[in-house]
């Protein structure tokens, strides 16, 4: 089965100039927890997740694993970065896959790179969908 036959055909994406606040709104309204970041032509230039935002507000949080003892502290840190462009917090190196690749290649990539979702691109590198782990699992049943 080709990736394009099993992917979620959704083009929800962020732009480099989107602010952290706008991205949080997008995550909240859409129920998504990560989105690709694309340029004007739809080429992927990064990927950003809720985790990237938390790390942006509290750098080192996931490495040091210190607990949040005061929600006001996180709130204050978030407010400090809410108007920043997301390009400062996204991951620019994106693990992606072409739509004509097969499901085995996609599964192997997800396992080896330990990612839950792969942006899917066409032969021109334009975003055409997202392949989630659940898309693969559903395909296997």
């Amino acid at each position, binding site marked *: 089965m080709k990736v394009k036959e099993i992917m979620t*055909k*959704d083009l929800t994406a962020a732009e480099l100039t989107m602010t952290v606040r706008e991205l949080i709104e997008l995550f909240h309204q859409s129920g998504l927890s990560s989105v690709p970041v694309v340029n004007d032509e739809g080429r992927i230039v990064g990927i950003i997740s809720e985790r990237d935002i938390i790390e942006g507000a509290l750098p080192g949080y996931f490495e040091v694993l210190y607990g949040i003892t005061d929600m006001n502290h996180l709130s204050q840190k978030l407010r400090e970065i809410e108007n920043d462009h997301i390009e400062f917090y996204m991951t620019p190196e994106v693990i992606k896959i072409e739509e004509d690749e097969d499901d085995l290649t996609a599964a192997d990539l997800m396992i080896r790179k330990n990612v839950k979702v792969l942006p899917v691109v066409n032969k021109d590198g*334009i975003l*055409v969908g997202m392949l989630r782990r659940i898309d693969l699992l559903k395909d296997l049943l």
Partner: protein
Amino acid sequence: MIITVTPNPAIDKIYWIERLRLDDGEMPLMRATQSHLTAGGKGINVSIFLARMGIENIAMGFIAGETGRAVERRVRTEGITTSFIWVEGETRTNVTLLEKGHEQRPIQITEHGPTVPPEALKRFFTQYKRALHRARYVFLGGSLPPGVPVQFYRELAHIAHQRRVPVIVNAAGEALAHAITEKPWLVKPDTRQHTDVAGVSLKTPDEILAVGKEWVACGIGAILVSHHITHDLLITPEGAWDLEARDVQFKNLLGAEDALIAGMLSATVQGASVIEAARFGMAAATACAESEELVITDRAAIERVLPKIHIEQL
């Protein structure tokens, strides 16, 4: 790839009932003999038709809340690519009652839809411009939710034309009046509630012909207007035609107009001339009206009713 824009999508809930009993006692209770729930809105209906005909397309618009999620899920189930903008509130739920024997006169209750804030509009334009890189046609259709300016379709048509992408507009009132100034490839006025556009009446065949000829002289590619339940007029720079569907057994008129445009568009994409495409569209609308499906998907059913479509050059 075709882009369809539905600014105000909906979940359409349709009930078939034996008899409307609004005057039976204080609390009339009507039990539906059957019901149907689907994602709707003009562009979404066109998207579903195209997808079922094997034509790739992207559905765009504004969605919100749990109904928005239901719309998105149902659209994706059809294999349609989604590129919706999320806003606060709740996507519409529209209710239709079809009374047995009176299917030609459905009773519809529609909601306004969620308010679209300026930042969501800005995001829509960004996503739309991106999607246009892959587009062959753009379909713009339906009502505008609160917050979306009446110039919306005109601006979208203008951007598409800058990229040399032909535009189809199926709208009413001010939104249509603005859109036609951009000279779309095909205009289908939605005359269900407004039989005039910018103060010009489109009620009678003579009025439609006069206005249609004027519009094509100004640069609009083609105009398709329903002037009777079984008659449409097609006006192009090459001439005018009356398309008639004969011996139609009506069961449901809800998706017929959308099937007309989607059928015409699908035939155009496959290389048909404007008049051949309009005939196929009319057959799709007739097949839709003769079934209980909101979006007819059976190509064989459409081809079976093709002989019922009669065309007369005017």
